[in-house]
């Protein structure tokens, strides 16, 4: 059993260590813009922090409240993208992004029991902001429909998976012995809020 584990570990380590530049045919084909839309937010640290913070916040509030975001978040991304393309003048505001990181972090750290409607409004607002920010980087040759589909799909996947992982980790019904998990999530909120606070300061300083 131990040898099987060692062999599997070696194979996995080998696969990871020997990763090469991806050059799949499908990216260069007609569907390439779908992958551009899906990968664009994943290569932006701002998106990663905000999306993870949103997912963890929703997950920490429970499945009943969080499940609305499965729809609200991708729809918000699409709304932001459409808004940016329609107006052409919506550009990302660094202070707004930083402020949103701070707010999400504070809500997590305080373990605030925010109502479902408020959670949906925050998630939708955040998604609109980030959808518009992502749309700002779309080139003239990009197929907007495919880009939007990729963005919405990755938004759906990211928020759903983050909520699910948080719910599984939190296990609110596990009793006092698992109380440290709630504290760990609140500590993560403290870290996120600290990052947001500094970025707010930086946004105003620059």
């Amino acid at each position, binding site marked *: 059993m131990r*040898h099987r584990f*060692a*062999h599997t570990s*070696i*194979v996995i*380590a*080998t*696969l990871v*260590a*020997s*990763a*090469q*530049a991806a050059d799949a045919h499908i990216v260069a084909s007609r569907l390439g813009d779908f992958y551009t839309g899906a*990968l664009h937010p994943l*290569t*932006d*640290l*701002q998106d990663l*922090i905000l999306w993870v913070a949103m997912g963890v916040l929703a997950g920490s509030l429970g499945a009943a409240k969080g499940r609305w975001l499965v729809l609200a978040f991708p729809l918000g991304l699409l709304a932001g993208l459409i808004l940016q393309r329609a107006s052409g003048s919506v550009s990302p505001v660094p202070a707004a992004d930083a402020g949103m990181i701070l707010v999400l972090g504070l809500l997590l*750290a305080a373990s605030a029991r925010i109502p479902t409607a408020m959670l949906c409004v925050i998630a939708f607002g955040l998604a609109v902001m980030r959808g518009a920010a992502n749309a700002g980087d779309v080139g003239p040759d990009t197929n907007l429909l495919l880009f939007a589909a990729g963005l919405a799909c990755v938004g759906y996947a990211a928020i759903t998976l983050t909520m699910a992982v948080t719910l599984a980790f939190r296990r609110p019904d596990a009793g006092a012995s698992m109380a440290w998990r709630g*504290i760990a999530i*609140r*500590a993560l*909120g*403290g*870290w996120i*809020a*600290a*990052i947001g*606070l*500094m*970025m*707010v*300061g*930086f946004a*105003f*300083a*620059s």
Partner: protein
Amino acid sequence: MSFRIFPHLVIALAALALAQPVSAHEQAGVAGGLASGLLHPLTGIDHLIAMVAVGIWGAQLGAPAIWVLPITFPLVMAIGGVLGVLHIPLPVPEVVIALSALVLGAAVAMRLRLPFAAAAVVVAVFAVFHGHAHGAELPGSANPLAYGVGFVVATGLLHLCGITIGTLTHWPAGGRLIQGLGAVIAALGCYFLAQSLGAVA
């Protein structure tokens, strides 16, 4: 039985030898910013020992300090970070940072049991000065957001390290070991204090 691992090792070595550079999409300066943020609290010994001492002291004090600390400390430190970003000077920062190692080390060595509010104020004051030192570096980093993520995570992990060491207090010998560690931190704090005052080179 052990010979069965050789084919896998050969495959592993062959695959590693044939590996090529990865051309992943990367935001400008993220890796550099993250690395410098992560390393900043770790390469300054005065920062490092003070952060670990905060964690140990929190563990010694028990609830609620042990769980309030990791939640609020980064936030208070970020206030100092903002002052640093905005280039708002603090009085004698090097002296206060050295003093933080001395005071927190002494608190651990003496198992000082201050009321929670008083302990929180002591830690908060020092947190602002430590955050100021980190924050002053932020605007010049390759990616400020990545730098912020790096130094907050590094500081949080140092606390966690301190809290983990602090769990040794559950055993009598562990408690004495931790007090000894506190004395070492205080002694280092004395050295840094003397250095910041110009008494030693």
